[in-house]
């Protein structure tokens, strides 16, 4: 018994010292190695008189556990200390810049087209397209603008051949013609795209973007036209109320025709859409001319409807406060970065057009 106690007291006091891992391992061997003091005592259990044997074994086990625990704790203590020392050394300046990432952007015109498509999608329009190069018939004649008609002067046209048969489309309206020739009524489409006029100054660019709208069915009247455009303008500018005015005008391919103005005011140098005493022209529209319907083999006695054409670049300028039309196509990296949109900002119906 006294052996056990002696060993215990001796080693408990030893383990109280500040020890290195090596020293602990030596102690471990001294106790539990092959010829370690505790191991040796275990070997003697057989020779202990039976009457004392039980107590001896129990005491020995108890001391063994106690010492083992002390050793384990001591090792953990040293390990922890070591790790902490290591981590302390690894400390870095976390204010250093992160690895760079480059953000790409979507052009404001593309974003605006997606917004427009999203709005019209909600009321059942689908998107159609047409080629940039058009023939003279689709761009003018079929749209009730015969040759030698002064209305052609409203469009400064880029021609691709001397006979003026092929040209860069001056508006998106030829998509109306293509759509109606291809399918049967009813039609309910928008057609965004590039358009071209040989005009270049501060407010005109030889290329710009339009979106065409066409809705042909039985009994579609000017009230539907007004309702559709009012809905669009309100949604697009994300305003509750919109001041809008329809003004009689003339386009060869619609009759009656209208131009649409929206009210605005300037507050602190910024343009506020939807209120105020000033008018801003933003689009042209009207009821599709019966001559156009006849040209595409739609019976005007049975079907009628409206069409409109909106300048996309101009809408984008108004909504996002862009002053210069020409900058859209100048490809200045700084401008694209400033006015571009994050590709993750996809305009949708359910989450709204913008964040």
């Amino acid at each position: 018994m006294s052996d056990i106690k002696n060993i215990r007291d001796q080693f408990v006091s030893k383990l109280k010292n500040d020890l290195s891992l090596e020293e602990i391992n030596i102690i471990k061997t001294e106790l539990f190695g092959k010829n370690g003091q505790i191991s040796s005592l275990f070997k003697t259990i057989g020779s202990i008189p039976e009457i004392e044997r039980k107590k001896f074994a129990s005491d020995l086990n108890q001391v063994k556990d106690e010492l083992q625990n002390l050793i384990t704790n001591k090792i953990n203590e040293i390990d922890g200390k070591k790790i902490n020392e290591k981590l302390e050394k690894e400390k870095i300046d976390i204010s250093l810049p992160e690895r760079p990432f480059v953000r790409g952007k979507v052009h404001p015109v593309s974003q605006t087209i997606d917004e427009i498509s999203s709005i019209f999608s909600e009321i059942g329009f689908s998107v159609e397209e047409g080629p940039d190069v058009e023939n003279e018939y689709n761009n003018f004649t079929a749209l009730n603008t015969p040759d030698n008609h002064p209305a052609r002067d409203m469009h400064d046209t880029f021609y691709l051949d001397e006979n003026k048969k092929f040209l860069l489309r001056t508006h998106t309206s030829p998509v109306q013609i293509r759509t109606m020739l291809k399918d049967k009524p009813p039609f309910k489409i928008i057609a965004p795209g590039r358009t071209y006029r040989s005009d270049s100054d501060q407010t005109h660019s030889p290329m710009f973007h339009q979106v065409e709208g066409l809705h042909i069915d039985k009994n579609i009247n000017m009230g539907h036209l007004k309702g559709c455009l009012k809905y669009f303008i309100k949604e697009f500018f994300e305003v509750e109320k919109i001041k809008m005015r329809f003004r009689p005008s003339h386009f060869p391919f619609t009759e009656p025709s209208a131009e649409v103005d929206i009210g605005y005011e300037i507050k602190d140098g910024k343009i506020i859409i939807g209120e105020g005493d000033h008018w801003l022209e933003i689009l042209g529209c009207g009821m599709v001319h019966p001559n156009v319907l006849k040209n595409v083999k739609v019976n005007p006695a049975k079907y009628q409807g409206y069409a409109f054409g909106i300048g996309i670049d101009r809408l984008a300028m108004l909504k996002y406060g862009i002053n210069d039309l020409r900058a859209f196509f100048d490809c200045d990296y700084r401008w694209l970065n400033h006015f571009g949109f994050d590709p993750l900002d996809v305009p949708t119906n359910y989450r709204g057009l913008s964040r």
Partner: protein
Amino acid sequence: MKITFDWLKDHLTVNSNEASLLEKLTDIGLEVESVENLSEGLDLFKIAKIVKTEKHPNADRLKVCDVDIGKKEIKKVVCGAPNARDGLITVYAPPGAIIPKNKTKLVVAKIRDVTSYGMLCSESELNLSEESDGITELPFSKYNKSIGKSFFTQTNSNLIDLSITPNRPDCLGVRGIARDLAASGFGKLKQEKNKKINSKKPQTIKVKITNEKNQGCFSFGSCLLTNVKNVESPKWLKDKLISIGQKPISAIVDITNYVMIDINRPLHAYDADKIEKGIIVRNSKSGEKFTALDNKNYKLEDGMCVISDDKGVLGLGGIIGGTRSGTEIDTKNVLIESAYFDPRSIRSTAKRLNIDSDAKFRFERGIDQLSIEEGLKKAAFLIKEICGGEISKIDVQKIYKFKNKIIKFDPNSFEKVTGFKISTKDMLYILDKLGFQCKKDKKALKLTIPSWRPDISQEIDIVEELVRISGYDKIKIEEPIKERKKSTLTQTQKLFHFLQRSIASKGYLEAITWSFTDAKYNDHFKGQNKELKIVNPISSELSVLRNSIFSNLIMYMRKNIDRGIKDLSIFEIGPIFYGTQPGQQSTVVSGLVAGKKSRLSWLEKDRNVDVFDIKRDVVQTLVEAGYDSEKFFVDDETPAYYHPGKSGRLFLNRDEESVAAFFGEIHPNIIKQTDLKTESLVGFEIFLDNLKLSNKSLKDQKTKYSVSDYQKSERDFAFIVDKKINVQDLVSVVANVDKNLISNIKVFDIYEGENIPENHKSIAINVTIQSQEKTLDVSDLDKINKLIIKTVENKTGAKIRS
């Protein structure tokens, strides 16, 4: 079309103010472009009398005048006019006044050491006439008692500029505008006085319209005025023309202009004595020449409508007169022409000769065919009144008799188109005011269309008139129904939008550049395409349709690099062209990346952007768009504008014929020729039209989920192969050894040089082997290893590196 409210009042009895006029004009479709106060500041110009003139002490030609400007006030004015003399009544402009001719503002000025307070004005400076040799001379008897009063009659009428749409020639005359206003309830249209010419004198100049094919003149009215004295116009007439920004010239010219503007009836005045033996209206013959009033010589082609006499062409009918027969200040006998020319003929001639004139603008839109006599009478009476002389009978020659169009109008069609109702009574009221003759014919209305409305020919035109005059504000809003019967975008359109945002998400800024480009730049990229010229380009730098997006992108890349931006990625998605017919275009996404990665980074060493950066962008974009990269096949056949050794072409799979994309370094020669200063330039082109559309929706794309939980093992192999063998082929051989067991292959080293035979390279790959059915034991693995080595050696001639 420029008008004033005052001029409108010649035709309209009205009590409203100008603000409500402007609103009404816009409401009925006569858009007000601008309103300008022309007489602003004109009240400063005073009638004044020179009391005394003295020679300027320091200048021989200048005089110092004491000028009485009324209320006993005398101003000293330095004046260089030879006609400045004591007692002369003239026009004085004080400092602060703006000279109408050159819009300069007067200040108190020292002229050779003598201070001059204002200026004495010539008629030219006041825009009254071309007279600039001396200061204005006002008749003593008429103005002696007006010293100190304003010279210009004060009008409060602003100059209103209207944008008249091409369908409304009638509104190119003040009366037409007045008629529209009256129909909409703005005032009452005044009756025109219908004075008859009671002359017995015949019009002695014979007029003949040849009856030939494509004759552009349908009728030609004329009136001869003899023994006239072409004078300066009276003040009322001058004021009228000045009020709409025109310059008075001489009575006869001013009168023809006045009639044209007042009732949209273009006239032409000839000096009758200069016409050789009568007038012949005929088609021109190629090569005929004449000098027009714009002082230009024109050489005519066949079939242009000319007014001619025995000696040749006098003028182009309805477009421009000639100098040979023009009226001058000493003209004694005047022939006034009032004719009708076919709009199509006018337009085609004017286009061919590139002439624009007031008359042309009106005739090509369509002049009232029944206004010939009215115009002649109006002009003749005014000439007689102002210039004296005698009026002849009116002569009208015609080859075509005008008949008013008649159409039937169903009143119900109005509501069908506009969605709201007005009574038949209101319709009749409006149409009557617009000049229609209406008869009720059972359910329909029988309408005779006024001769001044060539734009009206069918029912819908009548609906437009009625809704325009009733007011667009009456149209009731029909709320749109939120219902979608068809999907908004097609698969192609969805792919377009997807690729656009996918590329942008990889750090590229989207550009939109013009569909045309500089032929110089296009040349680098056009390849086999022929140059697609624009006939009338806006400038020589934008003269061809682009065969590639690169031409514009590289141009703008250079501009941005010149701005000092070193590392940039831009892309564009849009059309490129391979022909000048509709449809000869395709859609491409094209991007360029310039500069370095990790420039000035504290973390890692910088490096140039390279072909594998751009290859990743292409491959990843296609993968995001739903294509399987394991099937992609790349070879090195690329267009000449890529670096021949560092570029590739990608197919969606090995059997595909059309190219999905090109990518690579841009050819160094092009970088040099375009003067692009960058360390590296790489680019790509993805051809949308060549990407097969998946008609599977996302839900169909998800196949059955199956993964293996059996142990996998990895083995490394290094093969020595001929340099020509590419990695793609070797990997493909390995993958095909056993598709069930080989789940992944990674290329981790390419080595050439020491220990490798010449023209050979070492390719090291890591192969993952895993079964779906069991844990592979050593012998299974051994078997597959051996099979891989054997197959690769057989198929590629490679040797395993030991």
